[in-house]
């Protein structure tokens, strides 16, 4: 059930962009790991439903893999503590951005975003949203076709039997595309004028989320430009990373979505 008073997608975009920007600006593991925690907190309070929950777990896995792979890249050159640390921190940064995006994906509804897209992006965005929403049906269809062929004695093993699997799935897809296109055409797709049903209202909550997020990003930008805090800890020689209290607070600001209320069930 969607809570109609849930947060405006633009607020989430502001949050994700700001958090991503913060991650981009630093390789300090303290800030980055804090960002992981903040993201998880926001995800837990605002995730949409079970499907999104599963995809968040995939993002977490992807993030962990990214960290590991990026660290492993060090083996292409000289391996020493400095290089390894550098590789690891780069990987951590990449992983953080993945986690942030995973959170964004888990708390927003893709179709909501599609309907907000500017005119020229509406159709490609709709196609992407359709691909996401049709995909589970496609996967189920593959299983059903495999079973159906088994039940008439054809086992799908090896490349030679693949047409028996691929063709029915594809033909079904083509028929569905035909029906979908007819339906879209009959319901006025592409008629030019567009309006939005029940556009999400900008609540105080959404505004607060957006403003605190931008504030966090601005703080880090100031630190980067003004140089009054260390954002990239030295790796040769390795020094213990710093944790500037102001910057820590800025990352804390990004936890606002979790603090202003949970998504209603």
């Amino acid at each position, binding site marked *: 059930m969607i809570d109609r008073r849930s947060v405006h997608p633009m607020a989430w975009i502001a949050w994700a962009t700001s958090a991503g920007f913060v991650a*981009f600006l630093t*390789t300090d593991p303290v800030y980055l790991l804090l960002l992981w925690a903040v993201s998880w907190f926001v995800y837990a309070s605002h995730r949409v439903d079970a499907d999104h929950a599963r*995809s*968040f777990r*995939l*993002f*977490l*896995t*992807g*993030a962990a893999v*990214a960290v590991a792979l990026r660290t492993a*890249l060090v083996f*292409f*050159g*000289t391996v020493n503590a400095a290089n390894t640390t550098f590789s690891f921190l*780069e990987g951590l*940064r*990449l992983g953080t*951005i*993945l986690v942030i*995006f*995973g959170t964004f*994906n888990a708390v927003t509804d893709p179709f909501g975003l599609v309907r907000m897209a500017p005119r*020229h*992006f509406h*159709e*490609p965005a*709709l*196609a*992407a949203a*359709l*691909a*996401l*929403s*049709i*995909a589970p*049906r*496609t*996967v189920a269809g*593959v299983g059903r076709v495999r079973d159906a062929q088994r039940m008439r004695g054809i086992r799908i093993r090896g*490349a*030679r039997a*693949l*047409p028996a699997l*691929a*063709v029915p*799935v*594809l*033909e079904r*897809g*083509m028929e*569905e*595309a*035909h029906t*979908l*296109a007819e339906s*879209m*055409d009959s319901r006025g*797709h*592409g008629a030019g004028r567009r309006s939005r049903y029940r556009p999400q209202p900008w609540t105080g909550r959404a505004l607060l989320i957006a403003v605190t997020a931008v504030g966090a990003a601005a703080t880090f930008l100031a630190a980067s430009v003004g140089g009054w805090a260390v954002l990239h800890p030295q790796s040769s020689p390795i020094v213990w990373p710093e944790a500037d209290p102001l910057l820590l607070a800025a990352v804390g600001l990004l936890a606002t979505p979790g603090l202003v209320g949970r998504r209603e069930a």
Partner: protein
Amino acid sequence: MTTRLELGLEPRSARPREAQTRERRTVLVPGMRIALLVVANVIGLLAFLWPFLLPSVAEHVAENHQGDGPWIVAALGAILLALLFLELGRGGLGPKTVALLGVLGAAMVALRLPGFVAGFSALFIVVLVAGNSFGPGFGFLLGCIGMFASGIFVGGLGPWLPFEMVAVGWVGAGAGLLPRGRSWRTRIAWLAAYGFASGYLYGLVMELWFWPFLTDGSALAWDPGGGAWINVRHYFGFYAVDGLAWDTFRAVGNVVLVVAIGRPVLAALDRAARRMQLRVV
């Protein structure tokens, strides 16, 4: 390259009250716009090739923002992609194209789920056959949209995404430019050969994304001060060690799939295009 998705009928001479047909909206890309598309693609290519070009800029970037380079270029890539989309979608894609992109995109998402087997992923076959049947414009769109949607679904997003989208888009577009010949054998042979080549080309281009992370001065590393030719040699050295094996899996996998299911699948797509009156050039 003419990107022309013509949805519907050929105009016929209208005999009053006897036979009337309507020409549908076309996504035609006349001369001026083709130039824009070409320019956008060229800039995209340059964005991929940035480690080889503009050595002084590259050097500067390496010194001060070593890890940032790829991110900045990713942003560039995203902007380029936006421009390409804007251009292709200018006339409005229409319900048929959107529906087909949705259904075939879903197939790519489904095929990405089992993951990669050393570089090979079955999702390539979708853009290969769809591009070959529906044309380069569609193939490009499908490549982009499919990689985007499947990236979200499997949690595989990162600064490489715009490049992944464009690279798979190019694979799809290329499939649409292949000659069809007069027989199925010719058509499949061309597609198989292209599947093989694109398996390597895709890898070659995507590995460029993280190769610049190597700046340790070895013979495989990126040398910001070395100039284009030295870097090309270094890169191929790196690729031979790192990417060649994986891409061979992909190249061979593509050929196997094209030969195994290419013909019935292409026949099905061609029939669908005919049934839906989607004539693509």
